[in-house]
């Protein structure tokens, strides 16, 4: 995932949303931005691998998601005694772009259990109703006020008609 510092307004909602605590904030700056790993997007664009992959002697591999998942499953199958029986990230938050294989149990290492549903789908359940609610509330209140004001309008018109009716014979009398 990449991050556009030009657009960021610094609201920190991404930090509320992220269950893994990945986005970090520049707390000591007057106009702080969010900072996070962008998977070395600038290097990828030039056909290079992320810097951590290049630097790491043994542990980090890089590739597209399906290939990495296959690789993780292969390692677990070949040396089952070496790995804890879970690929962290396969289903977490709807499936993440980084997988972790561990030897120790995940909770001992501080990996939190996380929902397997994609997080935006939780808020979208409410947000997709927004246009409908806006139109319903606006429409209902408009219709309601039209009716409640109608009585007054009718009364006023009747009064005016009565007045007119009263005035006309008077005018006739004068002539």
């Amino acid at each position, binding site marked *: 995932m990449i991050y556009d510092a030009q657009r960021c307004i610094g609201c920190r909602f991404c930090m509320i949303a992220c269950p893994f605590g990945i986005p970090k904030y520049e707390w000591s700056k007057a106009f*702080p931005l969010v900072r996070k790993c962008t998977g070395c997007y600038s290097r990828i664009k030039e056909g290079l691998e992320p810097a951590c992959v290049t630097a790491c002697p043994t542990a980090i591999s890089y590739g597209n998601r399906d290939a990495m998942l296959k690789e993780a499953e292969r390692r677990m199958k070949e040396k089952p005694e070496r790995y804890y029986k879970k690929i962290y990230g396969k289903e977490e938050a709807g499936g993440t772009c980084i997988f972790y294989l561990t030897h120790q149990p995940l909770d001992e290492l501080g990996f939190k259990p996380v929902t397997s549903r994609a997080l935006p789908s939780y808020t979208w359940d*409410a947000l997709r109703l927004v246009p409908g609610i806006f139109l319903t509330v606006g429409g209902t209140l408009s219709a309601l006020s039209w009716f409640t004001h109608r009585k007054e309008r009718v009364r006023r018109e009747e009064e005016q008609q009565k007045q007119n009716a009263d005035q006309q014979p008077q005018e006739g009398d004068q002539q």
Partner: protein
Amino acid sequence: MTAARLIIDEVKGYHRFLKFMIVLVALGALASLIRFVFGLGVTTNLNDTYPWGLWISFDVVTAVPLAAGAFTLGAIVHCFHIKKLEPLVRPAIVTGFLGYSLVCMGLLLDLGQPHKGWHTLVYWNVHSPMFEVSMCVMAYTTVLFLEFLSPVCEKFGYRLPLRVLRWLEMPLVIAAAAISTLHQSSLGTFFLIAVDKLHALWYNPLLPLLFWMSAIFTGISIIIIEATMVHRYLSQPDESELLEVLTRILPWVLGAYLLVKLYATIFLSHGPLFNRPWLLLLFLVELGAGVVMPLLMFLNKANREDKRMQLRGATMVVFGLVLNRFNVSMFGMIQPISRSISLP
């Protein structure tokens, strides 16, 4: 020098309460200066685990429902056409406008890049609750400003804008209710994304609906408190007969809220409800003192008509609301593993 002397003499004549307010504003100005020099970390004690603290909990999540009187009363008076409550509308709009100004000021201080706040107008992301909230804040502040202009134009006798505003009155009232409905509920939508962070006592898919309903009864209660206080301390006319109408509406909203809240908590929440005794206590206080007790109070006709009971019940509702918003945005978000909580 003479100008300064004039100001000092003027201030000396003020009431003690006003002087206290001036000191508060000065402190606030100083604090915001410090925020723009040394950053948010020093002034708010926030950190990467707790990125939202008091400014969001109070200035946004709590101040917005406290400003809900304007749209609630506007709809009651103009759409449901209960004309006799009209004298209460203008004070409600002033409170609403003040509340939203506070929200905007708070947000400008709390955003990391306040000068880019308008970006939400240009770079749309309809999948983000933050997009909805910021659109609603801007739209509704504008509506409140226009509604607030009427008395100002009357005071100075500007005829033409007044005629335009009169013509706009009904559309503005309806827009206010529609935008507020979205805005109040979207504050609840915020926390729908904190699936594994917010405790099950408050996390449920109906959170936006609950936020909207509680905003309505809070708006009504704020009007009761305000009208009573203004009568008591600023020698304005006694409105307790009109307030009685409001106390008749309150139990309906409180009762509906209680039903939805219990239904959502019992049937729609996931995860253990009773594992954190402190949170359970906060939940019970919030619901007992803020909803159940005022509901029972206002079911009784004698209480509804008694000035002192009106004030007491309304204050309890507002207390419950404030506690509820803090429970959702702060206490319920505390993670059991790390023991730190952010306080500015």
